[in-house]
């Protein structure tokens, strides 16, 4: 790149830069609008002004008093934490088997892993529901079957996801085989090698998976919608919709935006803290398709 007194190589690069600035502004406006609306008083809602005349912080406490928000937040946290742990551990184990172990049928089964990625979720949705409706929960969370408990949202995570297995396998194949071999000579078991050598070296890929499955579980809507029927078991996503219904026809947008902002906040914080893993993960994702 040419370096002069200007950071731009040419006039057209400056125009392109202006283009990026406008796109960035357009992309940020909705978020800004959300914050602005959340702090407005009802009278100001119809007056498309950017900055509220008076910051109505009380919107947050009002909105939070109309619903079991703390209960729903707790539910979301429980489901998310367990699904992330399950997803990361099981996907890593399975990826290890496909990347670093030799066993009969391995390549055939890996082909099946890839094939399941193309299966539309809706084909499985109904039979899975029927299975869970038949599995006994013995009164867990007050339910006779797995339906209307957290189990259908957590247990499948412990069997891994084809996509994460694929992503981790690609990564683990890059860890030098010599490390495993020398550990084996020193008498390490396969579980030892997996846990103490390959897992620590796969941290960037594991972080990516943890983050994506966190986002996936936190924002999942269809799963909770199908499986959670009683209000006390709702997640935040279902709670938000419940809150909108409770407003009966005309939602108070300032309240709705206030709680929506709070529901989004955890993912936003995680993104800002770990954006490197988001961005690297996405890039690997795309290349997986090549």
């Amino acid at each position: 790149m040419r370096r002069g007194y200007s950071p731009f190589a040419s006039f057209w690069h400056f125009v392109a830069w202006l283009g990026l600035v406008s796109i960035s502004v357009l992309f940020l406006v909705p978020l800004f609008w959300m914050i602005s609306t959340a702090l407005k008083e009802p009278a100001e809602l119809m007056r498309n002004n950017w900055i509220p005349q008076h910051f109505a912080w009380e919107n947050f406490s009002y909105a939070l008093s109309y619903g079991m928000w703390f209960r729903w937040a707790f539910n979301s946290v429980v489901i998310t934490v367990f699904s992330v742990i399950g997803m990361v551990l099981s996907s890593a184990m399975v990826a290890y088997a496909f990347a670093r172990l030799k066993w009969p049928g391995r390549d055939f089964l890996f082909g099946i892993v890839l094939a399941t990625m193309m299966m539309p979720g809706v084909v499985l949705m109904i039979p899975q529901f029927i299975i869970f409706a038949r599995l006994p929960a013995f009164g867990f969370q007050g339910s006779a079957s797995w339906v209307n408990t957290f189990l259908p949202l957590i247990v499948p995570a412990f069997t891994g996801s084809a996509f994460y297995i694929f992503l981790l396998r690609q990564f683990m194949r890059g860890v030098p085989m010599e490390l495993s071999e020398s550990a084996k000579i020193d008498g390490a078991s396969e579980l030892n090698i997996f846990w103490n050598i390959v897992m620590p070296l796969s941290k960037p890929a594991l972080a990516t998976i943890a983050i994506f499955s966190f986002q996936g579980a936190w924002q999942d809507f269809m799963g909770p919608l199908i499986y959670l029927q009683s209000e006390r078991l709702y997640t935040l996503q279902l709670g938000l919709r419940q809150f909108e219904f409770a407003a009966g026809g005309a939602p108070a947008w300032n309240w709705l935006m206030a709680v929506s902002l709070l529901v989004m906040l955890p993912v936003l914080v995680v993104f800002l803290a770990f954006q490197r893993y988001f961005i690297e993960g996405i890039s690997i994702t795309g290349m997986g398709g090549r």
Partner: protein
Amino acid sequence: MATRVTESQPVLTVAPKARRKFSRRRFNQGLTGYLFALPWLIGFAVFTLWPMLYSLYTSFTRYNIIGEPRWLGLRNYENIIFNDSMFLKALENTFWMVIVKTPIVIVAALTIAILLNLNLPGERGFRTIVYLPNVLSGVAAIFLWQWILAPNGLFNAGLELIGVRGPAWFTDPAWTKPGLVVMSSWWIGAQVLIYLASLKGIPKSLYEAAEIDGATGWAKTRYITLPMLSPTTFFLVVTSIIGTFQIFETAFIIAGAAGRDIALGGPGQSLLFYVFYLYNRAFGKVGAGGLQMGYASALAWILFLIIMAVTLVQLLLAKRWVYYETDGR
């Protein structure tokens, strides 16, 4: 290409025939492999393979979960294809989204990625901002867009500035789907980053060689960038189409907004997408055609076949426009 995930060479140990016979070590090795893969093997059997077979069987029956399934043969399929106007409406809406949304998303993502690849100051910041909406999804983001696209909301106020009277978006049957397209162009961050990664993988030497031959900016884009990106474009088109065929959440929430009956599928059924209709048939109220698991399973299999067919056609067409570097193989 440099960006491709390089697979480390598999260690090819060709075992001599004599050692092929049973050995304890080989057995243990195989067993370890299966034990590590066990979570997926169980998951595949219980949550994929069995459900698939079960769903196929259910699709030939009448089944409301409470009673026993009753064999119907092909009746569900016949009824869906020949007697179900809601099915046709859902198909029409879904194809509309696939056809309109895909090119817009691809072109917008490519444009932004090319701008990001110019090594301009602040590239990292731009990248973060463009990806940011992707983490702001879920129900909360849908509410936000309903608010922005309200008849006298922010978006229409912006249009007014340039002298355009904005439509009523999510309350006008003709504008609900365009509203969804506007919404989804906020979520193109992932596609942009995927394009950007493959742009960075195009060898500089190609451009330098073209410059020596006197190629201009446009010619370089047309004859180097686009062909080199075509595998990525193909991947993005295929995944975006598969994703759009299964659109559900946004339509479901907007159609059910303000206490409206979800079974109606939004204003004038304009948001009744395929999976949305399928959901109503499987999990909706009994009076509104719900709890028909057999019928819904048949709908699911028809969608599966449509997606397979569309993907297959794309794979065939890909030969004409997707450029793969041959590795001399």
